[in-house]
């Protein structure tokens, strides 16, 4: 079974000369919110120079615990020790002064400032009130060398990749002499390559004596870099384990509280011969008339199969989806839905014709965050019977519809159908979108990164839903950045590289290595 390595009752001896084993100790932390105990007697001890993973589902209390450490919340019980001495962290400034730094999941950068300006922001070096960046620049360049964080100090944040933005965030912490670094789900926004890079950086940081708290719900990453892992479930500490001695299955069971199928068991697809979605020589050019973003793409998705478009982010997936769903007009080519040409159809016409779309960004496109759950669940059907009569909304049917979808798709919300979408957890927001899109019984479901940022339990659920849709004879087009997802869920994989389809593979025989080569553009195969 799981081996407990924490000594909860250990009394830290404060011998001044010898640095204590733990750099940060959070002992018996309890934090209450109205109606909820977010952290219940949670203990977490961070060793000097280790990467300590904090694992838990969405809403298990990880963010709350880290917010307590970072001074955003005051704990209702328990105490925090730094180097064995009790400390009082009243606000983030205290935390920064104590050498605790946090890389937030959503970066806190000024977009029209340069990399250097962002790093120095708040601790600028000045002479007689005039900004002198030379010293800051030297320091930043030195730090980036020391830790292997490649950046361009003079690039504007708005022009650099997400990966570099994250390195800027890390440098911000290092520039402020942080010795304890909190990474809040840092890989959620990164491509597989960038994730590898980040994990390497994290290893470097610990080698240089930094200690890292790594919040995540991705088991692979924990296995790759973390030494120990503390698991939270519903606000409680399930235990702290040595990662090397614990399998992924055990970790996920600790996290979810039941056995989770990490690898989906699925039947072979039985696609009909009928093409539900057919794309012919589709091209989309950028606004600046450069290289086409989608370049002469042709494929078909048949009823009863899941086709995955795999690729590294930014290879034209977004534009492809926009062209299929009517959000942008393609420059050439045709899109057919069950034989009908919908190339010039509006978004509404496509929806009516049977296309559903789970968008990439649930906040940008998927939800009206200030609307209630019930209102969001009719976002695509509000104009139809029974939701309206003579131009007036009918709140009874709207409510029943929402209640039914919430039940069928296991959407959980504090105030039921009247909960604002904004206050739902990410997983439930995603489930709500999926409920809305799949509840319409579409012929073609276009799902763009439907499991992005979700925990294993929710991912398992969504994958099963996609399979169920397939088995009901729907055509599913899945756009994914994750190799595992592509291989695990889909029946056929199209690899997209620089706007073109470079491979059309049977998911059964494909391997991650093979896919990786196609995705990186180092191999090509004529599309079928």
């Amino acid at each position, binding site marked *: 079974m799981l081996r407990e390595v924490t000594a909860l009752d250990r009394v830290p001896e404060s011998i001044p000369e010898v640095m204590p084993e733990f750099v940060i100790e959070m002992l018996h932390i*309890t934090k209450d919110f109205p109606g909820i105990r977010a952290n219940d007697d949670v203990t977490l001890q961070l060793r000097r120079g280790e990467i300590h993973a904090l694992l838990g589902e969405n809403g298990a209390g990880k963010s*709350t615990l880290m917010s307590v450490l970072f001074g955003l919340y005051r704990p209702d019980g328990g105490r925090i020790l730094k180097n064995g001495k009790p400390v009082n962290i009243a606000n983030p400034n205290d935390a920064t002064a104590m050498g605790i730094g946090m890389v937030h999941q959503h970066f806190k950068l000024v977009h029209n400032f340069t990399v250097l300006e962002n790093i120095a922001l708040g601790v600028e070096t000045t002479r007689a009130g005039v900004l002198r960046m030379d010293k800051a620049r030297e320091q930043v360049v030195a730090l980036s060398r020391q830790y292997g964080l490649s950046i361009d100090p003079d690039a504007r944040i708005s022009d650099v990749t997400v990966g570099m933005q994250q390195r800027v965030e890390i440098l911000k912490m290092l520039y402020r002499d942080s010795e304890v670094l909190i990474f809040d789900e840092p890989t959620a926004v990164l491509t597989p390559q960038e994730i590898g890079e980040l994990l390497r950086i994290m290893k470097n940081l610990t080698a240089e004596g930094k200690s890292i708290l790594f919040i995540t719900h991705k088991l692979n990453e924990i296995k790759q870099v973390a030494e120990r892992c503390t698991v939270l479930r519903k606000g409680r500490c399930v235990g702290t384990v040595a990662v090397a001695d614990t399998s992924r299955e055990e970790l996920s069971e600790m996290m979810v509280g039941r056995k989770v199928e990490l690898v989906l068991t699925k039947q072979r697809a039985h696609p009909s011969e009928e093409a539900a979605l057919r794309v012919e020589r589709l091209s989309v050019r950028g606004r600046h008339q450069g290289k086409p973003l989608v370049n002469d793409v042709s494929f078909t998705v048949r009823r009863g199969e899941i086709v995955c478009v795999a690729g590294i982010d930014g290879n034209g997936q977004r534009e492809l989806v926009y062209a299929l769903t009517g959000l942008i007009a393609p420059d050439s080519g045709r899109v057919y839905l069950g034989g009908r040409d919908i190339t010039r159809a509006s978004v509404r016409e496509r*929806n009516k014709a049977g296309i559903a779309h789970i968008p990439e960004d649930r906040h940008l496109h998927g939800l009206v965050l200030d*609307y209630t759950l019930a209102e969001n669940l009719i976002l*695509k059907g509000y*104009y139809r019977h029974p939701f309206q009569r003579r131009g007036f909304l009918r709140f009874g049917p709207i409510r029943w519809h929402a209640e039914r979808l919430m039940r069928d798709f296991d959407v959980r919300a504090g105030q039921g159908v009247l909960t604002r979408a904004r*206050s*739902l957890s990410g997983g439930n927001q995603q489930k709500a979108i999926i409920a809305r899109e799949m509840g319409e019984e579409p012929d073609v479901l276009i799902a763009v990164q439907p499991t992005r940022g979700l925990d294993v339990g929710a991912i398992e659920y969504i994958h099963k839903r996609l399979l169920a849709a397939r088995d009901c004879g729907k055509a599913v087009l899945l756009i994914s950045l994750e190799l595992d997802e592509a291989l695990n869920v889909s029946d056929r994989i199209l690899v997209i590289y620089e706007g073109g389809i470079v491979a059309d593979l049977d998911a059964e025989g494909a391997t991650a290595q093979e896919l990786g080569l196609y995705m990186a553009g180092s191999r090509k195969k004529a599309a079928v």
Partner: protein
Amino acid sequence: MSGGASGGARPRIGGNKRGMRIGGGLTSALSSVTAILAGLMVGFLILIISNPRQAAVGLGIIAAGGFTGGMKGVGQVLYYATPLILTGLSVGFAFKTGLFNIGAPGQLIVGAFAGIWVATNFTWIPQPVLWPVALTAAMLAGALWGAIPGLFKALLNVHEVIACIMCNYIGMHGVNYLIKNTNTYDSLKNQSIDVAQAAIPKMGLDKIFYTLKGRYVDASSVNGGIIIALVIALLIYTLLNKTVLGYELKACGYNRNASRYAGIKEKRSIFLSLIIAGALAGIGGGLMYLAPVGGLHINVVETLSAQGFNGIPVALLGLSNPIGIIFSGLFVAYISQGGYYLQRLDYMPEIIDIIIAVIIYFSAFALLVRDFIMSAVQRRDAKLLDADREAGER
């Protein structure tokens, strides 16, 4: 270590010190009242600075507002509140749909002129029908003046604030020009002529709101316009909250991208929003100037309509809620009336104007700040819920 950390059964935490679970309506009303009090305090400061001896009395008069003048005063409050409620609705409606209609002054004056022009030129229309026709003309003209920035925004992505400001000046100067060059000009008083024939009926309100001065009945200028304003506020409330159109317009206001994704025609929504907002301000102009003898006239001066601009603080103070706007419109009229009575004391008219402006605008600004804090707290609350979705699970 506090007692809360002792393990055992998980208690449901009741005592909520942060108290953000008050009903939405109550919180809004509270924040508006707080803002008003803050505004009054600043007004009081100015009273003290300009004339310390009478400051306390002055504050009393302002606070007593319309009531200082008895029932006539109340009637005046209702009369002056009428256009404010309409321009407040105009701005508030646009806010709800994600647009900032700063063009209410122009829409109001253009609507007013159209109303007056119809009222003076279509006198062959029987009197009971003439005022509704004139009011409709006012509405249509206001709608047209809202449609222009709407079109620019929808088709060319010109920011509505720029287009609205330009339309304000075009509207004001255009109306001045038209009044002088049509038969609607009273050159003696440099204003538009009386429209007694097409005046909105009093609907019996004059029988309620008057003050007896000996034998002399000192009637207020109140007319049926206030009733029309209240009905329109209810209509707008219904439109926003109960109809498919309101659902679409609000969705576009909250999240334009999600609306596009859902197949809502956002350009049409922008266009429609500004047309409706313009129509509301136009009606406001109509109700304001289609008044019986003794009512307001359009003065040919190079000033943008204050009633139009005051729609902005009215909307902010009413939190863009049509029902809230009724009350905030009444409040602003009430305070203005208080300022009018302040003339009894030794205060310069300019100082009175400043004080009233300060109270109104400070109220609105304070509210903005308060609103900001509230939403910040709410966002924090939301984050908590995000962090602990247990709410639904335990």
